[in-house]
């Protein structure tokens, strides 16, 4: 160990504590980057820091902090999903780029909505096994959150006498989702791709029966993740009711503010 090494060793404590001046720190880093000596003292003294961290008095964070952190991470994942092309694994396992699963496809509308859900779940399962793309995993995680909302919808859809609606809108970027309407008046909606609401804005859900009159059934706010699950009960809805969403400046709207963001007509699932 030469003199330079010795001088650098003497700085080890100050270095790991971050107590060196920027110039001193630069000199130490440069030396460590090029010196063949192991300079174990840095690692050993660095190992003391976690104990200093552990020595603080315990202060409980506010309960809301956890939710804020996971919401922020989910928003980042969803944001990436919006810009990352959807990748669908082919049968050979080679990833290919395909169009996003478009439930606005007219074909999907004629098929039972439950078939679409099963198809989505199958894709998620195939790609999840691969896990070869972190970006895709994050997109899948955002989708998984949506899928969790789907299970709530499917619970209702599975009840005898229930009907389901695939909600779609104008254009391929429109918010989309699924609604289930039970015979005992419960409506559960899961949506994705909704623009976040600001201030008192809400998305208002409506059911439109044969007479064409939209009846409001409740509103909900949407955060940056753009996905939401909403449930209403005590709704009077006959067969073939249309479920629709509008964006309102405040809750309690009695007449929808056009345009309709997303809508679909409910059908009883084919057996």
């Amino acid at each position, binding site marked *: *160990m030469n003199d330079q090494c*010795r001088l650098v*060793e*003497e700085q*080890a*404590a*100050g270095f*790991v*504590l*971050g*107590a*060196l*001046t*920027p110039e001193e720190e630069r000199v130490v880093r440069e030396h460590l980057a090029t010196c063949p000596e192991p300079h*174990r*003292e*840095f*690692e*050993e*003294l*660095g*190992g*003391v*820091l*976690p*104990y*200093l*961290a*552990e*020595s*603080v*008095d*315990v*202060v*409980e*964070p*506010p309960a809301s*902090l*956890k939710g*804020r*952190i*996971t919401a*922020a*991470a*989910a928003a*980042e*994942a969803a944001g990436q999903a919006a810009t990352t092309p959807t990748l669908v694994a082919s049968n050979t396992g080679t990833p290919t780029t395909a169009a996003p699963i478009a439930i606005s496809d007219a074909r999907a509308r004629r098929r039972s909505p439950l078939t679409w859900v099963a198809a989505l779940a199958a894709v998620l399962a195939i790609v999840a096994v691969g*896990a070869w793309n*972190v*970006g895709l*995993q*994050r997109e*899948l*995680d955002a989708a998984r*959150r949506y899928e969790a909302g789907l299970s709530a919808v499917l619970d209702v859809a599975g009840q005898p006498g229930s009907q389901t609606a695939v909600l779609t809108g104008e254009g391929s970027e429109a918010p989309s989702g699924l609604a289930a309407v039970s015979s005992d008046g419960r409506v559960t909606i899961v949506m994705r791709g909704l623009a976040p609401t600001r201030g008192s804005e809400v998305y208002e859900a409506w059911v439109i029966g044969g007479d064409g009159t939209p009846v409001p059934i409740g509103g909900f706010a949407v955060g940056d993740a753009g996905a939401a699950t909403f449930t209403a009960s005590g709704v009077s809805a006959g067969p073939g009711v249309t479920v629709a969403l509008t964006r309102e400046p405040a809750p309690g709207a009695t007449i929808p503010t056009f345009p309709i963001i997303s809508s679909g007509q409910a059908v009883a699932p084919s057996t």
Partner: protein
Amino acid sequence: MSEATTDQPLRAVSPTDEADRAVLVRLSAGDLDALEELYERHGTMAYSIAYRVTGDAALAEDCVQEAFLGAWRSAERYADSRGSVKAWLLAIVHHRAIDAVRRRRPTSELPASEAPAPTELQAPDVWPEVAGSLEREEIAAALATLPDAQREAIELAYFEGLTQPEIAARTGAPLGTVKGRVRLGLLALRRALTHEGEPVDAVVDEEGAT
């Protein structure tokens, strides 16, 4: 090596780190539930550190949020390297908290460092297999063995982010003296902590009553 190099490494892979590492792998795969779990495991400690350093609840929350989001983004990079996951995470929080107080300090002319704490220089898992609830007392006891001036210098550096010249200005001691206190204090703390790993009787005999 110099005589000050210690006798016993602070090394043991604790059950805590095994579990943390599993969470980290899931985190690096983009699993949001893993992020929740990581927060449940270390969020309180992270917030406690941030609060101790910043003294400000809102700022502490921001530091914790940034730290966990930083872990969320860079988990993939860290998943393969050695080192305690907990130490890494708390180091990020500590670093962000120090940055925050340095930025708010009008007299500090030092630029806030954007790089996270030098994780590659920290020892592999330093949390011994001792039960967690005993550790704080052991650490407090170890800190208590230090001469006041050394303990003060270390605390000013670690909890307030002061550089050695700033510590000298704050305490009125010469810069050279401060550098000595920082170095000797951290070395002494390490020695005291390694002795904490020994049976309690030995510790009591050695430290005795002061």
